[in-house]
């Protein structure tokens, strides 16, 4: 089972690298926001998978918190880019 879990982790890492490439290339700032939102979701999956690989399912708490922070951060950055202020 460990081999399949590590293979899935490597696949997620490849996807993260591709999205990071788009975040570097992205011509508009919206491309970058979209790519970083996708990277955040992939990071949640990565943390959950790594918890199972290392046999420490307590990592799921970190994944849960990261999912919430990721959503709020995306909306906040988007609001800042749109209106140039955060209130």
């Amino acid at each position, binding site marked *: 089972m460990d081999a399949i879990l590590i293979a899935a982790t490597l696949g997620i890492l490849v996807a993260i690298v*591709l999205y990071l490439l788009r975040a570097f290339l992205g011509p508009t700032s919206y491309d970058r926001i979209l790519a970083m939102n996708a990277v955040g979701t992939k990071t949640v999956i990565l943390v959950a*998978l790594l918890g199972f690989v290392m046999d420490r399912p307590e990592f799921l708490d970190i994944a849960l918190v990261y999912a919430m922070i990721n959503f709020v951060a995306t*909306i906040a950055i988007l609001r800042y880019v749109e209106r140039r202020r955060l209130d």
Partner: protein
Amino acid sequence: MAIVVYSIAGLFLGLGAVVAITGGVGAIRMPDFYTRCHCAGKGDTLAQLLIMVGLILVALEAYPLSNLAVFKLFFISIFILVTSPTATHAVARGARHDGLVPWKAGDPRR
């Protein structure tokens, strides 16, 4: 019995990784911001759903139910299932309000 559950879980995990890589390739190769929204949003949501189902099967087999791993995975999955399309929609709507013109066939790639 364990080998059957682990086989199904491995199928889901592999499928989820393939969908995630497909979304990344789409985000690189699509010609326009709105088309990239399509593959990033859908690829994210489906990939996390498949991988979380696989991990739930692993947790059912490997850990006792009192560990709460199954419930945490379920809540993470439901949360991302709601927030990932919402965030993608908000970004696309912001770009539309900002006046970003959609790509048409024949335009140069952006």
